[in-house]
């Protein structure tokens, strides 16, 4: 990125496609985790953040939530909730870990857990459709001031999807700030946000709080209030 280029705000939306495949028990979930297309694994482990589930639930991915809620398998729900897909170098390695955790759980069960009718997991694959909003932020101050009103989906694109694009290295905000010579500790704090375990609105608040702590300008601070 050119250090003089303004920050280009990209928004995104999800195209969701059903696989026509359903899980009703833990064995079927294991089989699905082993065989579904990558785009389905990405959807249920990462892009489900855009379905706002994490705003309502305590789990950051569909698989953990389904095990807890539908199968009543709280132990497995917690284990799957702890798996952070952004920490894996590839989807193949994520898939292997998920399959191992589920298989290990199945191994120890006397009876396979089933969900009640109506609570099946209907598998979906998705793709991100990103588009340029035309909004440009020429300075870090302008970017910071825009934070309270940025759409949640744009946050997802610039943080979650950016991590995917950069193999987990960085998000777009801190990358752009680093290019412009921003304070290294500010950049480090932004990159250290545990974004997978935050809803998109919590993520926004955390970013704002980091800027708030970093900014010496009281006027700029005053503008950083969430609508």
């Amino acid at each position, binding site marked *: 990125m050119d250090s003089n280029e303004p920050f280009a705000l990209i928004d995104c939306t999800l*195209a969701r496609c059903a696989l026509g495949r359903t899980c009703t028990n833990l064995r079927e979930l294991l089989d699905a985790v082993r065989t579904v297309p990558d785009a389905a694994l990405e959807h249920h482990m990462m892009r489900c953040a855009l*379905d706002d589930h994490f705003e309502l639930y305590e789990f950051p991915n569909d698989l953990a939530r389904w095990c807890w809620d539908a199968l009543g398998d709280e132990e497995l729900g917690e284990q799957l909730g702890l798996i952070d897909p952004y920490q894996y170098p590839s989807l193949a390695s994520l898939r292997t870990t998920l399959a191992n955790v589920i298989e290990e759980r199945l191994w120890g069960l006397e009876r396979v857990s089933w969900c009640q009718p109506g609570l099946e997991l209907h598998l979906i694959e998705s793709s991100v459709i990103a*588009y340029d909003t035309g909004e440009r932020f020429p300075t870090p101050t302008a970017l910071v001031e825009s934070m309270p009103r940025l759409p949640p989906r744009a946050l997802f694109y610039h943080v979650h999807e950016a991590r995917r694009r950069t193999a987990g290295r960085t998000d777009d905000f801190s990358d752009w700030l680093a290019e412009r010579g921003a304070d290294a500790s500010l950049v480090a704090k932004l990159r250290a946000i545990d974004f997978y375990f935050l809803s998109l609105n919590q993520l926004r608040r955390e970013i704002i709080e980091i800027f708030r702590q970093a900014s010496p300008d009281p006027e700029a601070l005053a503008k950083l209030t969430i609508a």
Partner: protein
Amino acid sequence: MKLLDRYEEVVGHQEIRRLRQLAAGLAGKTIVHVNSTQTGGGVAEILGWMIPMLEELGINARWEVISGPPEFYRITKAFHNGLQGRPVSLTSRDLDLHIEVNRENAQRLNLEADVVLVHDPQPMYLPQFTPSDRVGRWVWRCHVDASRPVRIVWKHLEGAVTRYAATVFSMAAFTRPLPCPMFVVPPSIDPLSDKNCSLPETERLDTLTRLDIDPERPLLVQVSRFDRFKDPLGVIAAYRLLKPYYPMLQLALAGGTADDDPEGAEVLRDVMEQAGDDPDIKVLMLPPDSHRIINALQRSAIVVLQKSTMEGFGLTVTEALWKGKPVIGGACGGITLQVHDHQTGFLVHSPAGAAYRTRYLLRNADKRQRMGRTGHEFVREHFLLTRQLRDYLTMLLSLDRQASNN
């Protein structure tokens, strides 16, 4: 005032702006929707707002309607039922007539477009009889739960699907494996319609008075057809479990019966019998256009129930959440996508479960209010018609992208 400007007041400037930005990638394209009726029914209602909105977004949108003899509609009604797994009686002559009517309509209709969206089974065979250079891409929109269709119906329609680039379903649960992408676009409600708009307090109170409901006493409401799958008897059972603890409680069961549902009258009879002479149970048979009455009832409820044992998407749940009401819903169909335990309401599996959760909410006013606020925002984000429009635009862009990648 333009249509999009009116919705901007509800969904916000940003959402409308994003729709314009998404649509910019489709500017100048021509999209034709085809269905089988200009008025009445959910599809016509959707197209009624979607066509002008697409136009406002710079997309050339048209709406074509197929027509056929009365026999054709009897056959396609059987398709509608058969897709949803109800037993049907169809002959090979019926299937031939369906194809023949599609052939005639393909010659009559103006289908020249980048994308033709075919709604439901009636016009499904149009691609077979339309020259391939007239239509860029065909998309089939199935508005019903087709996950367990009757074999003869599915086999007949499956033969037509091969000509489509994609299909669209309301929920992943409504699909079955097909050889083309199956996009998921959930339905939505119109926040400005009579059923969902804000109501003057006087109108709400007048409505209750006319229905002989006491506005000062707590009211439970279920709005749905008198259909066994909506479990109205289970709702009455739940109410009776609550009544000893809340003697002032009232229950309104509001709905109608579908013309094509002979069982409806029987269910209504059972409901009346169960209600007996309890003056606090109101069984309301309402005409199909009673939108403002339903609006008033939902707004007057302390808790809304939708205790279905089988359900489509469950837009009555969406309507109640939009009005800031916690919903106690049966754990089935689209209710599970909308009712989240302790957040927007409770999922239940029995009349006792419905009674238990209702009792909890009756005791906890602050919880009710918090759930109501969460539910309202949840619907604003996910189930208003602007989101449905966004999903359609996304699907069209996704198809363009797939084509350019191939």
